């Protein structure tokens, strides 16, 4: 992308829309700010929009409905802004095809970081991680439940995961039998480049192995690939 990416900001609250548009402009984006879904539809047809930032609660057509419309007609990434923290909202939003969501009040820096993650994924031809929330992955007798961030063992007992463990597990579960380097894992799980804290991934891997491997010293599920990284050696079914 040689030009500045073009963002469409849709929020009925002027007190958020205007300063946020300013902030995003200062941070290297071209921003079109509108206050309703109807207006957003017009802009989507008229302009080449690279990403939509969408408030869920709006008078008239709400954000979820517009999000569904965007997903049906194009591949433009969507970030949802939501003021409610109930889990149902998040899941519904992600099922509507949103790429990410941000809870109000949010740090504008974090929003920019997330926008960049999405653009990087689009640029590298990465797949959209659709609906990570509310789905279940089954592998080798284990279930990974994304909504609750737990692994369920054969006895039906849930083992809760830390944020880092969960991100790593999800990265493996969505890419079974692929060799993932430390850099890739860091990028997928934390959206950052590898740096001196490279060992973080190895620590998390060993924690995960303790949880799911029958013999953590002799891993059969999360295998180390010499010179390459790690791979989840199991067939994964998405339930």
């Amino acid at each position, binding site marked *: 992308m040689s030009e500045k990416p073009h963002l469409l900001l849709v929020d009925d609250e002027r*007190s958020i829309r205007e300063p946020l548009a300013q902030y995003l402009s200062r941070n290297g984006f071209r921003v079109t700010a509108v206050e309703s879904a109807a207006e957003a539809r017009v802009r989507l047809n008229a302009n080449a929009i690279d990403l939509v930032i969408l408030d869920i609660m709006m008078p008239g057509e709400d954000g979820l409905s517009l999000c569904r419309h965007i997903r049906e007609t194009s591949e433009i990434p969507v970030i949802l802004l939501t*003021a409610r923290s109930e889990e149902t909202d998040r899941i519904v939003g992600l099922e509507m095809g949103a790429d990410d969501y941000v809870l109000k009040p*949010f740090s504008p820096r974090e929003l920019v970081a997330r926008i960049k993650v999405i653009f990087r994924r689009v640029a590298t031809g990465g797949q959209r991680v659709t609906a990570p929330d509310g789905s279940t992955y089954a592998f080798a007798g284990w279930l990974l439940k994304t909504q*609750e961030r737990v692994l369920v063992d054969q006895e039906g*007992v849930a083992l809760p*995961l830390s944020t880092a463990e969960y991100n790593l597990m999800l990265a493996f579960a969505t890419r079974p039998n692929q060799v993932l380097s430390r850099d890739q894992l860091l990028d997928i799980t934390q959206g950052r480049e590898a740096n001196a804290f490279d060992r973080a991934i190895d620590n998390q891997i060993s924690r995960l192995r303790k949880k799911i491997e029958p013999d953590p010293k002799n891993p059969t599920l999360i295998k180390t690939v010499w010179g390459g990284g790690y791979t989840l050696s199991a067939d994964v079914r998405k339930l």
Partner: protein
Amino acid sequence: MKRLRLWPQSLVGQIIILVAIALFVAQAINFGLLLRERNRLTLTAQTAPGVYRIVDALDSRGEPPERDRPPRARFLDRAPVLTGEHRPDVERRAMVMFADVGLPVRSVQVVEQDHAMPLRRWERVRMRAMGDLRDGPRVARLTMAAEYAPGKWVVTQSRMGDRPPRFGGWLIWQTLILYAIVLLPLLWVGRRLARPLGQLTRSAQQFARTGSADPVEERGPGDVRQLTTAFNAMRSRIFAMLDEKDRMLGAIGHDLRTPLASLRVRAESVEDEGERARMSQTIDEMNRMLEDILSLARAGRSTEAAQKVDLAALADAVVEDFVELGSPATMADSDRAVASVRPQQIRRALRNLIENAIVYGDRAHVSVVREDGAIRLAVADDGPGIAEDRMEEMMEPFTRMEGSRNRETGGAGLGLALVRAIMAEHGGALKLANRPGGGLEASLVLPAS
């Protein structure tokens, strides 16, 4: 006072027991009266033959005895010496009977002898035919002597009729039949009464436990049906109120978060970096308080489903999140401890305790222990602890510890109140205790599955 175990606690049980006792008492009184009447009749039947013979003998005195019949009575000129069991009851009855027929008898002596009196032949045949040979033939005979004039006695003997069969068994049978006739329908009515009451109880208990309850089917007798109708109406009113509360909280949350979000965005345009950081910190703080207030207000209305969770793994994951952020939290090696809980809620409760431990007690050390039927998630710190008399108070909403060193704003004081609400929802408890070595230990105690 501990009640007798035989006494039933249920309404129907008590009614049935009362009716059964009343029936039994009525039966016993009835039986007593019957027995008295029967004894009177028996006495008359025993006395009558002797009396007739004496009357007959006195009437036919002087007539020549019939040849083919043995004399039925002997006349004596002195008081007879009678051996055998003295029967004053028969004597009294005989005196009354003599008076009734107008015979002036001065006194009567009656004895009963158990042996003697040969059986008539046909009787012997009958007894043998019946196979009834216990103790041989035992028919008693009554000897009655009457003083019909001073010093003049007439003595006669008569056989006593067979003793009437005892009728205790008859009482038992009659009572049982009565019970069947009265108690079975009563049981039926009682169950009809008890079932809707039981459903009401279950529904109310379910409501207390889970915050939701099914409406109760309206049936049974009229007044119970009315109660059910009233209960269902109350239930829907409570639900409407709770839904209204949730809607209101949602609206408040939304309306407060929008200006906060606006402030948060604007704060980024502040030039001074220190000022900017402080502003966003304050906004985050406000947001956290808002979050706590909303969570506490929603406590008990969780939509999350309970599932079997390894609490050791849960504690480990929560601690790991703190460690990732560089917070001084540690986790002791703990064995698998499975309980049925709502994992997000327990995560939240444990997070609150660990945050408190770090803020007020410099570090958090988490351990998970199984102790008879319960699982304890303990968070120990190195702080000053809490004065014993303030412990209860600390768990109330909006109470804050004074002298918080590390933080200017100590939050809204909702952390422990929220933990306690989450524990109450799980049938567990929040326990606070000062550690012997110094510092506070806050534990979540949950029932194990």
